[in-house]
């Protein structure tokens, strides 16, 4: 009897969550347009005049609520997005209010950041949060750390803690023949992140990282495909642009087709609040961008 009851409750829960997630997949919470303009979208600047002629959509963000740990609150609850394309490249310009600029790595300092997410295949549409198994999403991730790396050179311990003193490092002794003659690659074997080839441990030309994901926790960095970006913090506001080709050859990348709608979701991290990974602000569901 008790067992039956448990089974019933369990079935009910199963049905309820099944319906809810199917609902979640269909629901589109906002729409905006990527206007067709005859301005080079691959090179457009952050504050070029063209942006004045493009309507901006204000979109809500909310605390990430699907995977643990779930933040109780987030720093950024609203953002604006503008977009245009020139038939070859597409550009997104995001802006949001953030009174603190978090651009440098420290032990417990986290980076401001933002990400765009697109489905690799629109049908069937993947789960809006980080995709799902066999239904990957393509993510463009900007980190404020990388912007500062690009401007000032890769930030190091020395730039994070200028007053720190160290006696000496391996291979840096002032005498010859004790490893000092090793190449940088040989020395890097002793730097765990580099030795393991972790993309985070190397300096990058681009401030945007491209990734694929098939569900929470499966994020995987991939090669940059002519994607570029720019970011600026001014008067308590971040403005970031993401530019990329409409189509590339990689089958794991999003393809934008003129005349079609493309699902998109956003994430924003407020470094000051130590937001990172799932501690972030997200779109409440997929939005759609109509590519003109």
């Amino acid at each position, binding site marked *: 009897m008790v067992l039956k009851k448990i089974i019933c409750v369990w079935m009910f829960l199963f049905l309820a969550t099944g319906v809810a997630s199917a609902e979640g997949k269909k629901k589109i919470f906002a729409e905006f347009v990527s206007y067709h303009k005859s301005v080079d979208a691959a090179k457009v600047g952050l504050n070029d005049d063209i942006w004045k002629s493009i309507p901006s959509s204000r979109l809500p963000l909310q605390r990430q609520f699907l995977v643990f740990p*779930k933040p109780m609150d987030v720093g950024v609850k609203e953002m604006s997005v503008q977009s245009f394309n020139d038939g070859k490249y597409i550009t997104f310009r995001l802006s949001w209010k953030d009174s603190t600029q978090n651009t440098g790595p420290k032990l*417990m*300092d986290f980076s401001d950041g933002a990400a765009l997410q697109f489905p690799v295949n629109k049908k069937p549409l993947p789960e809006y949060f980080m995709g799902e198994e066999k239904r990957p999403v393509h993510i463009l991730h900007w980190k404020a750390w990388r912007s500062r790396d690009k401007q000032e050179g890769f930030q190091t311990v020395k730039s994070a803690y200028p007053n720190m003193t160290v006696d000496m490092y391996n291979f840096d002794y002032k005498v010859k023949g004790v490893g000092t003659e090793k190449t940088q690659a040989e020395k890097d074997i*002793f730097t765990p992140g580099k030795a*393991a*080839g*972790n993309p985070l441990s190397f300096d990058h030309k681009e401030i945007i990282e491209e990734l694929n994901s098939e569900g929470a926790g499966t994020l995987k960095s991939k090669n940059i495909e002519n994607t570029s970006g720019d970011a600026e913090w001014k008067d308590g506001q971040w403005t970031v642009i993401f530019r990329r080709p409409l189509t590339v050859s990689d089958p794991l990348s999003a393809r934008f087709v003129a005349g079609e709608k493309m699902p998109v979701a956003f994430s924003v991290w407020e470094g000051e609040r130590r937001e990172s*990974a799932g501690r972030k602000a997200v779109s409440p569901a997929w939005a759609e961008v109509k590519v003109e």
Partner: protein
Amino acid sequence: MQMRKVYNWQLGRKAAYVYPLGRPKKQWAIIFDLNKCISCQTCSLACKTTWTSGRGQEYMFWNNVATKPYGGYPQGWDMGMLSKLGLQEWDGNKYIGKTLFEAAAKNEKILQHVADDKDWSHPNLGEDEVAAAIERGDWIRIPHRAWMFYLPRTCGHCTYPACLGACPRKAIYKREEDGIVLIDQSRCRGYRECVRSCPYKKSMFNVETRISEKCIGCYPKIEQGEMTQCTTNCIGKIRLNGFVSTPDNARKDNPIDYLIHERKLALSLYPQFGLETNIYYIPPVHAPVAYLEQMFGPGAGAAVQTYRSIRDDQTLKGLMVLFGSMEKVLHGFKVDNSFAYGYDEKGNEVVKVPVTEPMYIRDFYDKKLNVYRHNTP
């Protein structure tokens, strides 16, 4: 969050954990005799020169030694955690309070105390600081009214690691063969959920590689059947590294099991956190038992009594002299009337030490050499 129930023998009950984690084939462990640590930091330096001498690792001490009760690396790691957890209780040897997983808010996996940059920046602040101000006459009173002791620590390669449970992308794993917990340096994305979640604060962030690192239990040595760097370099010979069993599989001839399960002399660090951590301590006999119970659980008082009676206990006395006597991990030991013996996994004798060092008394005046000699035992 929906937690799993796992059996934690240190608490005498099932406790919450993120995954239904099985136990490894063998579990790495270190025992520290706190009565003998002199805070020489040789262990910290042995680890540092071996593993963390690069850029971004400057502040990292996978092994550290702090002065208790006030010292800590990072500062206040334990006090911060304990005050968040609040007053909890034991019922005899069973913990009836909440573990850190059980005390987590419903949106979190584990209760966290997050250390700030400044907490990490003075690895040995408060060194040699005693528990109270010294008053006139205190120095001639025995036992001393004001106490302190040194607490050396490594990662505990916990049976239920908070770092592993907290990592959003399963970049941390526990090795089946020896229970060592490692961060996959190619998978880590520097989220620092492990840094926030490890209550012992033994997962650390490398600013230069922008990912997290932690004590690797000296696995390359363990794979060769040798003890960790911080163990074999210990000047005070206070450490023994090996493998611990669960109580029902404990072997009396395994030195680690003997001290932990058979004699209950070595106790785990803050068992109430609920990680079933695997660094075990022989408590210092001169510190207040109430403090030791908070740190090592309800068995602290009895452990102090056992330690005080070692002089009349040939087996324990023999086992204690094996500490720091060899590089090889001991899987077995034996003590007879004069010697303590240690054996490797195949049963080969790898060490033999006299339980009591022989004493030679020489004449005060040596005629042959025409010198006077003092005997200083």
